């Protein structure tokens, strides 16, 4: 916890007291980056740290989709299924990547390397179809480029 607490303290020092509650989202993000997935105890930890009602942080944790509450693979693949990507072949690419990894959307490969998630618009409509692996955006995808990108991942 000490590394996380250092980051908490550092950020908190830049927020005036009246904005204390605004640290909930940044703290959840810091914790997620450190631990990869979060549980109720993490929400309680943040609430205690900020002296806020635990239910407020628990609600936030469970309401936002980016705060994973299940273990995810080493790489999280988010592939867009919204309108612009669908018009440019997202369904075909989702089937391809699903077959290639041998998992359905929402699942993690047995070796723990990949989690495949379907997401809504990533704001890459002009360069559709698009996906995000961990932090990086990959756009104008084809089956070929997907294979290459996956091969390049450790």
């Amino acid at each position, binding site marked *: 916890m000490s590394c996380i607490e250092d980051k908490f303290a550092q950020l908190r020092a830049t927020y005036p007291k009246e904005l204390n509650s605004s640290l909930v989202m940044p703290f959840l993000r810091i914790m997620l980056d450190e631990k990869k997935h979060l549980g109720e105890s993490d929400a309680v930890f943040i609430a205690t740290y900020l002296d806020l009602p635990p239910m407020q942080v628990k609600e936030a944790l469970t309401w936002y989709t980016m705060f994973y509450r299940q273990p995810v693979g080493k790489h999280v693949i988010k592939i867009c299924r919204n309108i*612009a990507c669908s018009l440019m072949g997202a369904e075909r690419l989702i089937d391809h990547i699903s077959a290639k990894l041998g998992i359905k959307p929402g699942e993690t490969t047995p070796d723990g390397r990949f989690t495949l998630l379907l997401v*809504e*618009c990533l704001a890459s409509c002009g360069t559709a179809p698009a996906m995000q692996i961990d932090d990086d955006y990959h756009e104008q995808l084809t089956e070929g480029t997907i294979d290459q990108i996956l091969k390049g991942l450790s």
Partner: protein
Amino acid sequence: MSEKIFFNFPVTADSHTLAAYKKRGGYQALETALKTMQPIDVEKEVMASGLRGRGGAGFPTGSKWSFVNKKAPVVYLCCNADEGEPGTFKDRWIFEHSSHQLIEGMILASYALNVRNAFIYIRGEFDLPYRRLMEAMSEVYQAGYLGENILGSGFSCDIRVMQGGGAYVCGEESSLYTSIEGFKGYPRNKPPFPAVQGLYKAPTVVNNVETLANVPWIIANGAKAFSAMGTEKHPGTKLFGVSGHVAKPGLHELPLGYPLKKLIYEDCGGILNGKQLKAVIPGGSSTPILLPKDVETANLDAECLATFRTMLGSGGVIVISEGICMVRLLQVLSRFYAHESCGQCTPCREGSAWMNDIISRIVAGKGSKGDLESLERITKGIMGNTVCALGDAASMPVINFITKFRTEFDYYIEHGRSMNDGRLEI
């Protein structure tokens, strides 16, 4: 030829830096304003320019600012950078290539509104846009354009950047500041409007990225130069993102009132693979759809699009070619809205899921007579009966698709299959 407010420099490896922005005249508007203008002068200039919000609703920015009591002990400014309306990808460009333009606009707005603490709420998925913004923020603090006593003017202001958690509804203004307060992003009833009671119950202005990034240009070049562009009622330029079935998708900066047909057929090279046009969604997925005959005469400004009973929205133009199955395309949208409904209001939470269930059943070939009537009835139960506009946004495409492409829906229900092979891509 209209002037450009955004696409006025070549994008290079370091065109996003403070040094490059200053070379283009950056932060001069701020220096001028702090030295020679009163806060009210900045507001008056923005009011006179006729600038309207670029996020979707198109509300006059100067009026929004004028509603705020600047003598209140605390006033907040929130930049809405939760870009998530399907079809929209403009704010991303601003962050990646011209973050300083937004930051300068926010400092000017903060000066006008007497804001000590401002926020940028940027969507959580953004990576490069976020990194570029954070680089710009540290440059700005080092240069003394933010913090205590900016440029010796006595005016102090801080901007804090907050990353979202992947919720579409947080692009709704009251949901956005509820999220900034550290809660799940449930929208709030209005009134009270944010100008009276917003973030932490203080007067608050929420403006879109593109809106705020227009402000330095207006201060530098004057309201007249701005209102000389675009149409009388909708002045200036706008970033339009074109996606879907065009030969050259991408982002264009155009004067408002620009012909939609010209954008699609000249700037974007026409329909992909030389196909015929089937439909256009003009301003992000929540805006009502246009047919090819509408595209002939539609111009891209709020007033003209209103005559076609649609909206300019966020400027996300989605082009759909002939041969696409509108039933399955509607399923893509209904699934999205059902997924993003926040759960607060029963009509939207239940209704968006029911609509998605019915449309999915039709797509599975198990549609039955009366399904379309049920959909219509559900939209009537949702629209106007929810705290925020997400319910309306979920209902409008349903009404629109089933009205304008009725034969396709009837065929799918009767035969259990698509008239167009269920095709979504060309």
